[in-house]
């Protein structure tokens, strides 16, 4: 029983981690808190749903297209909103406000398309296989979610630390001016960062959609707040930190359900967030930047 809950907690945590990773990438590299990530999460899940149920596409293809769409929407946001804003000298607060507006636009698009209904994937999208061993029940969906998450996280880690793109992103995160001096095309690197971040958000959206088998226009909203908690606890801009923090949040939620205070799991999460902000605002693995006024 305890082991089963542990597995559930890790699964929940891994979806949080995927979502928060995309958040943290843009935040760490460009110092933009992109709230619209939650809307991209929702829209990607809808794209996957419509491709499967209306156009009868096989799940892997629909999954790929949805992830690409997530990335492209984020690039569009960068081109249309964030880049003009930064060239006009917007502060970090005005980019946050702009991303809140963008998120509002995208969510209302999702609402208009879906008519505010809860959609379910057609039966048989994912093979319905379950394994029962030692009182533990694991479904094929759960294995799929976990393996995709692990692969993506490993991929992101390698991308950031070993490839040219990753090195360029980390340079910009250090200082955009220095990146420019070194001849890094900062504008296109910023677009790539947004693409990867949006793709991660889209990935999380589709995985969550099939895990709980429900897609609706407000599904991203709680994840934005969980993502905030994960990046603060893990530390701004840290990949390892976000993964550890997301697992902590997932486990805390599952175990608060076990202890019978499941109704207040959001309060537990936000309480953890508040404690960290109070005692260690740089998070577990964050850079020691100055956060105090």
């Amino acid at each position: 029983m305890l082991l089963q809950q542990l597995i559930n907690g890790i699964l929940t945590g891994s979806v949080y981690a995927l979502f928060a990773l995309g958040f943290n990438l843009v935040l760490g590299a460009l110092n933009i808190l992109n709230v619209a990530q939650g809307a991209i999460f929702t829209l990607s899940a809808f794209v996957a749903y419509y491709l499967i149920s209306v156009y009868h596409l096989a799940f892997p293809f629909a999954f790929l297209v949805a992830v690409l769409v997530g990335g492209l929407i984020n690039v569009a946001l960068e081109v249309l909103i964030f880049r003009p804003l930064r060239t006009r000298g917007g502060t970090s607060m005005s980019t946050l406000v702009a991303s809140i507006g963008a998120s509002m636009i995208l969510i209302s698009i999702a609402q208009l398309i879906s008519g505010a209904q809860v959609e379910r994937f057609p039966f048989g999208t994912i093979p319905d296989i379950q394994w029962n061993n030692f009182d533990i029940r694991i479904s094929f969906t759960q294995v799929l979610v976990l393996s995709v998450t692990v692969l993506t996280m490993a991929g992101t880690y390698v991308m950031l630390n070993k490839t040219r793109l990753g090195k360029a992103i980390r340079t910009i995160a250090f200082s955009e001016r220095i990146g420019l001096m070194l001849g890094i095309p900062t504008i296109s690197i910023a677009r790539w960062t947004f693409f990867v971040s949006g793709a991660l958000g889209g990935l999380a959206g589709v995985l969550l959609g099939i895990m709980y088998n429900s897609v609706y226009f407000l599904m991203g909203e709680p994840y934005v707040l969980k993502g905030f908690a994960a990046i603060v606890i893990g530390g701004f801009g840290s990949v390892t930190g976000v993964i550890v923090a997301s697992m902590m949040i997932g486990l805390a939620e599952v175990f608060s359900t076990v202890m019978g205070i499941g109704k207040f799991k959001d309060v537990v999460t936000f309480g953890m967030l508040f404690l960290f902000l109070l005692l260690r605002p740089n998070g577990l693995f964050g850079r020691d930047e100055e956060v105090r006024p």
Partner: protein
Amino acid sequence: MTMLDISSWFQIYNHALATALINSVMALSLYFSLRAGIFNLSAVGFMALGAYTSGIFAIRLGTPSVVGIGVGVIISLIIGSILVYPILRLRGHYLAIATLSFGGIVQALALNLDGLTNGPAGLIGVPVTVEVWHLSIIVAMLVYLAWILTSSRTGRAWDAIRTDLSAARAVGINVEHYRLVSFLISTAIAALGGGLWAHVNRVIVPFEFGFPQLTFVLVNTLLGGISHPVGPVIGAVLVSTMPEWLDKFEQFREMIIGFLLVAIVIYLPNGLVTSFSNFRLIWTKVFRKIETKPRSSGNE
């Protein structure tokens, strides 16, 4: 137009007017925070706190509305003065996240403390005692208070802190004190707005205090701009009456608000009210050939 027409017009638009005025109260609450350079997103959380307190007092205890609203403001001030110390030690994104998650906690509690708040169904049957003329007087008084404070020593300190915190500290302004005052005034006004809202709307539902409400408060304040206390009120009235003159686009309302928010931040970063005073400046510059100093516009 006879007297009868005028009175029926007021009856039809009564609720819309009341909503516009309450949005003005909320926009003024955010005005006080932004004026001191605190990007405080907890206004909606304190609004929920005020609304639920006055609703619970009116329904469960049957006290007069003034008592419920007053207690709501006092409770919010107590909670605010506990939270203000950890929150104001943060800056930038950290402050935004902390205040936003406070709103999340309040909403989660409102959804789940069934015995007190009646859960997702919400509190129904709060007596409607607040009239439009009450609200008009309150908004006028708040604007007056904002104007007095803004043009006083406190207001100058806030402007200095907003423009450059370290420089303000260097010239000997007690930064912590003035930021605390701004945060607490903002808290009290938000709770007042919530309490009034409960007595206008008759129903309090937890979903009303979520993300959309926050965007609404933000767009109201930023459209008007924070360079003058009238700005937030103008913004709130313009945006709140929008459904009336855009009734064919009702389903696009949230999308329009989103577009507005993005457009304001990019093209009108100082809001409507400043652009009018800028217009006067350009006028004098072009036609009188007078050298004018460039206006500084610090946002943080």
